[in-house]
């Protein structure tokens, strides 16, 4: 199942008497989303919209096209929904059709497989998977990440908590592998910024329905018991990538302590509440186009397509090798409503970016916190820095 959108909006409205008429160049991209069957989220408010990520693609393509209208450039983005069974065939079809820029919304293992299939034929931009392994031992030369890594997200929260002097953490992790990877990132962040994990517990996923009528009755009795008798702590950190329990922690903990991580104060790449640095304009444009607030995946896909658009604006000719080299060079930067230029780390392909700390309906803070300094870029206080990388590209 796929859908083709050709955006050259505004082209006919704009009049240019420029003598420098660039030859019309078409930039083709695809967004491939892998929908795997899985359990429902705890809250019906967290049900993913049908156009998750693709709505970001629509806006990114339209934004590129507005600039393209002045530059003699058109942007075509194909959106593809795949299942774990069909994703490789869909990828092959895109590669055979010569699409050179492919944005992925998939888990880490699938993302690596797709990058390997693309080889030197396409640049793959990961707009979903946060796994540190993708930036480390499983990194690829043709794989870039507009999604922040787990290390960036956990460092962002750790900086804030340490700034707040909440340095004694009670870490609760889920029982899924992705939860354990996230918990490992929190342990690393605690060591990096001088926090202490005073207690660790694993919340086992015993299966069953995530939502039941009047399920809160049992939760209200279970969660306090699960969290009781922990050593003195300032904050409860939830590492629950699978979304099994974290949403139930706030107001149910035995001790009156704030919750952060997968619930409470949550580190995220985007929030529909974000208004700083022109963010409001993204929100209003997105909501007008999509009819709903933007999710992280929408922003990450928008960013990936804007990377292509920005490189097209600066390099003009459309040649794949020129575009690719430019994106990976220190000449490249992108403005994306985060208050400073975003650039790619040359050691692992990760987009440097500030991380929002979201508390319900507001953005409570944005990391990096200004007190944490760095000799190169303050953004490199978040995530895996050059000397620590396990990526050999």
């Amino acid at each position, binding site marked *: 199942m796929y859908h083709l959108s050709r955006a050259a909006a505004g082209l006919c409205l704009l009049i*240019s008497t420029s003598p420098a008429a660039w030859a019309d160049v078409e930039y083709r991209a695809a967004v491939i989303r892998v929908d795997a069957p899985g359990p429902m989220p705890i809250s019906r408010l967290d049900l993913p919209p049908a156009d998750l990520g693709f709505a970001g693609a629509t806006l990114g393509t339209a934004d590129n096209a507005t600039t393209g209208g*002045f530059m003699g450039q058109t942007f075509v983005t194909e959106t593809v929904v795949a299942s774990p069974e069909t994703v490789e065939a869909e990828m092959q079809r895109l590669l055979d059709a010569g699409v050179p820029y492919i944005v992925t919304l998939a888990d880490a293992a699938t993302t690596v497989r797709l990058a390997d299939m693309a080889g030197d034929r396409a640049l793959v931009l990961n707009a979903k998977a946060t796994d540190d392994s993708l930036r480390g031992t499983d990194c690829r030369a043709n794989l870039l990440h507009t999604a922040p890594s787990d290390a960036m997200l956990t460092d962002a929260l750790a900086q804030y908590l340490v700034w707040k002097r909440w340095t004694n953490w009670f870490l609760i992790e889920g029982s899924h592998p992705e939860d354990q990877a996230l918990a490992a990132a929190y342990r690393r962040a605690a060591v990096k910024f001088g926090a202490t994990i005073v207690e660790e517990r694993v919340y086992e996923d015993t299966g069953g329905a995530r939502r039941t009528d009047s399920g809160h009755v049992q939760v209200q009795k279970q969660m306090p018991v699960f969290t009781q008798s922990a050593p003195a702590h300032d904050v409860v950190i939830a590492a629950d990538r699978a979304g099994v329990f974290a949403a139930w922690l706030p107001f149910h903990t035995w001790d009156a302590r704030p919750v952060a991580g997968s619930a409470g104060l949550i580190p995220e790449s985007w929030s529909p509440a974000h208004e700083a640095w022109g963010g409001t304009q993204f929100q209003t*444009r997105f909501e007008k186009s999509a009819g709903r607030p933007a999710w992280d995946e929408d922003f990450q896909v928008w960013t990936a397509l804007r990377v292509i658009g920005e490189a097209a604006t600066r390099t003009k000719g459309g040649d794949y090798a020129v575009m690719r080299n430019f994106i990976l060079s220190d000449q490249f930067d992108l403005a994306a409503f985060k208050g400073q230029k975003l650039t790619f780390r040359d050691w692992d392909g990760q987009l440097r970016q500030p991380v929002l700390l979201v508390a319900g309906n507001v953005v409570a803070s944005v990391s990096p916190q200004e007190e944490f300094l760095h000799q190169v870029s303050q953004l490199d206080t978040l995530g895996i820095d050059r000397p620590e990388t396990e990526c050999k590209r």
Partner: protein
Amino acid sequence: MRMAALACSAALVAAPALADRIFVTNEKGNSVTVLDAASLEVIHTIEGMQRPRGITASPDGRHIYVCASDDNLVRVYDAATYEELPSLPSGPDPELFVLHPSGNPLYIANEDDNIVTVVDVNTRQVLAEVPVGVEPEGMGVSPDGRIVVNTSETTNMAHLIDTTSFEIVENVLVDSRPRFAEYTPDGKLLLVSAEIGGTVSVIDPEKQEVIHKITFAVQGVLPEALQPVGVRVTADGTKAYVALGPANRVAVVDLSSFEVKDYLLVGQRVWQLAFSPDGAFLYTTNGNSNDISVIDTASDTVTVSVQVGEQPWGVVAVKSE
């Protein structure tokens, strides 16, 4: 209730003002702070607007125009009595604007709609809506009034618009997130700041190309904090002042060599700039320290900072009558 309060305060301050006055929009404070330019005392606060940002004055100094972003209006005030006059339509979410040198019309950047709205300030009619790039922001006008410039933040271009045909005649690519456009008084150079790119592009309006890029470097300040926003050029065209946002500094640029001569430490997150009517002083709005700094333009020294309202954004100064 609010109308009554406004009318009352207007009546109280109707006495003629003698000194030059400085008007500062307070984005969070929902107000305009009025200062006596000689004493630098706050002499009045205009209220009753939502999220005021861009501010300018008519050439005769009698009217103050304010982009009330969350009112989706341009509010107009009498500069002497502070009385509110009929508002101008602005299109949604107006942020910055520029007046034609003759005092009419007003060119307004509408960030949400990718258009520049042209409004007759006398008839209060919209004369034209010009489609531009994504997120139009900065507005400048050539001294002869023939070209109005808009910068679009996500398209990264300066759009040069003919003020009679309302059509774009040229698009000049600049660095990321262009915020402000300012001509030199002779019209021979156009300066465009790029907040994320960290540069000011010097454009030759005749050739319609970038002839130089001014870059900034301050010891001990990370490069990503050097974010050029507001730009003002002295009346003699020899110097430009560039507000560097979270670097908390204003750069002084020699316009013959394009070299940065000095960095002046002001308040926090400095965004917009305005000269005093005689050009002897430059006022800066420091959004995160809730003050304005005063720069003596003869010695290029910061003389004083004055508290205003919450999160000052824009500034304009007018001559006494």
